[in-house]
């Protein structure tokens, strides 16, 4: 396993990173399989200290801050501005899934200062003692009242604030309508049925238990978060039945959607936005039965080595001007009203970023039990190795 990251030199990493940014290759799970996260840490570690540290109003916060996050998720120029302002370089560690982030933190000594957990994972981090409570006096740009509560409430557990909102999004599907007489599809039922019929060999599901099992549960009208054994058994039957018809089980679905090998995929809204912008016949739709709505947060892991720098970075990224640039870069909606006001009009009115309320209402937030349920984890692993 470790040999994969050994293959990556700093230069190689920069090349691949450049391709990520252009969107020619993508997203979460790619990094999960390649171990690129480790390579970035190496790259970043070689950089700090090369430049002089300018004075920073917040005092000396050290020469670096380590951020564990998702791919395509930030505007790099914001990090440069942060370094200009504080003298601390941002080392970016890129991850593939919440499961992987949790696994790394459970194994201990990650060296991260800031990470980006998704709503449903935070209570588990609290239970496991892996997350620091946040001291809001160090976050002058955090204004609780500016955030839509739906996308902020998971950051607090038992009245203690552990995480502040970054952005939110939905998990739906992207369909290339050119292969379906110009028609999009509209439900998970249709998704799995067409995958075994007209779209056989052309569909993809995520390499991610939450969304893949969740969508299969939605097919039957069950809850996205179900951990009921009978319902999971139905979902497993469906997935195993669909498997021979799938083009791939991958969370790195943009390349095959772009080159036309695949016509349909489970899709995060930001990817849907990117695909639709470049190839208009690829539509992003939400399943009529439901699906996932999620929000990501900034948090500080227990034992973060550069705590001051962690607060400085989170505070910097919460600045509405900075955050607006982030949204333009990653294409996911913000929960911060101050940031929203600064967005260009076409983003404010974008139906993929901000779907109509009636489309959002059947969606569910992932639940903590969905993350930790051993049966769901094992079901996914069985489906993949079947």
């Amino acid at each position, binding site marked *: 396993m470790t040999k994969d990251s050994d293959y990556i030199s700093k230069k190689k990493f920069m090349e691949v990173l450049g391709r990520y940014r252009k969107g020619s290759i993508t997203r979460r799970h790619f990094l999960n399989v390649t171990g690129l996260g480790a390579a970035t840490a190496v790259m970043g570690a070689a950089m700090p200290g090369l430049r002089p540290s300018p004075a920073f109003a917040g005092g000396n916060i050290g020469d670096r801050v380590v951020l564990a996050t998702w791919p395509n998720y930030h505007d790099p120029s914001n990090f440069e501005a942060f370094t200009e302002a504080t003298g601390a370089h941002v080392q970016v560690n890129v991850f593939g899934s919440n*499961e*992987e982030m949790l696994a790394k933190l459970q194994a201990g000594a990650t060296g991260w200062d800031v990470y980006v957990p998704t709503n449903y994972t935070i209570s588990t981090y609290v239970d496991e003692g892996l997350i620091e409570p946040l001291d809001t006096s160090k976050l002058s740009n955090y204004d609780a009242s500016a955030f839509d509560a739906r996308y902020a409430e998971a950051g607090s557990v038992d009245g203690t604030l552990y995480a502040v909102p970054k952005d939110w999004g939905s998990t739906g599907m992207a369909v290339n309508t050119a292969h379906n007489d110009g028609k999009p599809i509209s439900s998970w039922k249709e998704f799995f049925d067409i995958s075994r019929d007209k779209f056989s060999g052309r569909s993809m599901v995520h390499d991610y238990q939450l969304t893949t099992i969740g969508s299969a549960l939605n097919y039957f009208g069950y809850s996205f978060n179900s951990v009921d054994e009978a319902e999971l058994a139905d979902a497993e039957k469906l997935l195993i039945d669909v498997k021979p018809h*799938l083009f791939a089980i991958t969370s790195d679905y943009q390349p095959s959607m772009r*080159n036309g090998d695949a016509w349909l995929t489970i899709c995060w809204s930001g990817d849907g936005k990117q695909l639709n912008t470049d190839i208009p016949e690829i539509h992003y739709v939400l399943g009529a039965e439901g699906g996932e709505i999620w929000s990501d947060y900034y948090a500080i892991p227990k034992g973060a080595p550069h705590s001051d720098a962690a607060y400085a970075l989170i505070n910097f990224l919460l600045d509405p001007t900075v955050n607006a640039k982030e949204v333009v870069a990653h294409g996911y909606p913000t929960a911060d009203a101050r940031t929203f006001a600064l967005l260009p009009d076409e983003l404010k009115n974008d139906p993929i970023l901000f779907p109509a309320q009636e489309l959002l209402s059947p969606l569910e937030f992932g639940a903590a039990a969905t993350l*930790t349920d051993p049966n769901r*984890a094992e079901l996914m*692993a069985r489906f993949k190795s079947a």
Partner: protein
Amino acid sequence: MTQRTRNWLLLAPAGTWFLVMLIIPLTVVLIFSFGERAPAGGVVPAFTLEQYANLPARWAAFKNTMTLAPIGTLSALVIAYPLAYFLAVKVDPKWRTILLVLVIVPFWTSILIRSYAWIFLLGGRGIPALLGWFGMEGVRLINTPFAVLVGIIYGYLPLMVFPIYVSLDKLDKKLLEASSDLGAKPWRTFLQITLPLSIPGIATGCMLVFILLMGEYLIPAMLGGGKVFFVGNALVDLFLQSRNWAYGSAVAVTLVVVMLVTVTVYMRLINRLGANRDDVSIM
């Protein structure tokens, strides 16, 4: 300093390395494999054989690995042997170094980047599109066992070429002349002189490639689209996604045992093959 002390001192670095990097981690994995999954993932100590009892759930991964690793090894051998033969015997010595360097050049680029190139080549706009021009429509290559096999052969070919090249290079050309003088046809000379004398190289190359293939993870993940699943992929899932360290450890221990058994049998066979000849032994 006595001879004995000196020997111990000389052994110390390698011994420490093996202890810290091999024996201790393997022991930890063995202990974990008798444990249970902790509620939020990880492992709690226990003494149960439950994880081993559950092994059949990963049968497909073992089957894929145990099928594609030997096929990949043999295919690499079939492709590598003529190349090594050409380099060692046929080619003009002044080109030899350059050609050998060309065999290594791909190693200068990460296998990850090269696998991405294969994703494009095997994807719908690559080789299948080319075949389409010749009337073969609808060929599907990417995300199939074939794609994984192509990636494996491509990735591991140099590891097969070099040992064979070395054994052929050392081959005393006078033997070939003698064989020819005594009236043997070239084909017979190859079968009776060249091939037997290159068995050490073949054995080493196959061993190198096979052992690495048994633990392969990246190529199936990238060219198999998550549908061609090796034990290595199952392990990554168990540790990073399911976070079932106990079960993952049991699968890992099983893989190590399977490998040990296979390699032992293989070495026995090779040694028996070489028993009649003093000059043939593995590595």
